[in-house]
């Protein structure tokens, strides 16, 4: 019975594209030209509510729900957060380190001081750096991409 279940699971996983090399998530990409992430981050307000296609390496993925991922910019030290609604698109952790094309709309998120400290503390812990809450002087404003679709080279 276990063998039959395994065959059924593998069959459906395969038929739904689970094992293909480039995996599609969400809606099909409509744009052909990519916008460099550095260009967006240089003047994010210029891109608000605009649909863009970005390309970059996946730096991080939401571990439990796959509801966000971070894409590396074409410039050092930069990345952009890609957000999706829970369950609508689920990014797998296997995407980490892979190249991704993501289409979506830019949006602005304002954090409270408390949230800012928590976020920066978490980032520092992740990178093994020391965190000093006293150095946080103003709340973060984040510009992120609300994704409608993505293609990841798995």
């Amino acid at each position, binding site marked *: *019975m276990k063998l*039959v*279940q395994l065959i*059924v*699971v*593998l069959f*459906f*996983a395969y*038929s*739904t*594209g*689970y094992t293909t090399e480039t995996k599609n998530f969400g809606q099909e990409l409509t744009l052909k030209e990519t916008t460099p992430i550095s260009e967006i981050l240089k003047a994010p307000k210029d891109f608000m509510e605009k649909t863009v296609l970005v390309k970059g*390496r996946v*730096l991080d993925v939401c*571990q*439990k*729900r796959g509801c966000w991922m971070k894409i*590396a910019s074409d410039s*050092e*030290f930069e*990345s952009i957060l890609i957000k999706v609604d829970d*369950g609508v698109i*689920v990014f*797998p*952790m*296997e995407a*980490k*380190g*892979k*190249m991704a094309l993501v289409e979506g709309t830019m949006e602005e998120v304002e954090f409270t001081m408390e949230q800012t400290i928590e976020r920066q503390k978490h980032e520092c812990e*992740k*990178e*093994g*750096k020391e965190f000093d809450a006293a150095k946080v002087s103003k709340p973060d404003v984040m510009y992120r991409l609300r994704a409608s679709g993505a293609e990841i080279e798995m």
Partner: protein
Amino acid sequence: MGMNWMKVRRLLKILHRDIGYLGVGLTVIFAVSGIAVNHIEDWNPNYVIEKKKVIIEDIPAQDEQKITDFVLEKLQINEKVQGWHKTSKENLRIFLDGQTIDVNLNSGAVNLETVTARPFLREFNFLHLNEPKKAWTWFSDLYAVSLLFLAISGMFLLKGSKGMIWRGTWMVSVGVLLPVLFLIYFS
């Protein structure tokens, strides 16, 4: 009339039995995955994530390729590098298949994160949470309809006091009442 009802019941029994058999595999997948994702706050139902911290001394101030080679040699890792990115002035993130290595270029602190998919559970959750979309959406809808059929037909399989005349009515009522009580409690 009595004869017709007997025929209907016989047909219901056959359908209930065969649809039940067909649903075993999916029921196992959905039930196991259901328990797994129900406790998502306490554990990761899809992946085992192992973290390790080491210190590497004297990391050379060179380009990323050379630093990567140096770090992997020190860690005795002989795997293909997928890429890297400098996430900050002092942090280099190196990607291997299923492994991420964060290297603090100043302190030499190295954080290794290894991600392994939980066998079966990852696949079960993939299907249960409808990650594939497409045809799977319709197929799982069909499964949901078949569960409805099993629930409703199940009420009419037995006649007499063990059927809906007595025992069945009571037990179905309790089954309906329980979620209602939870709703009242949590509202």
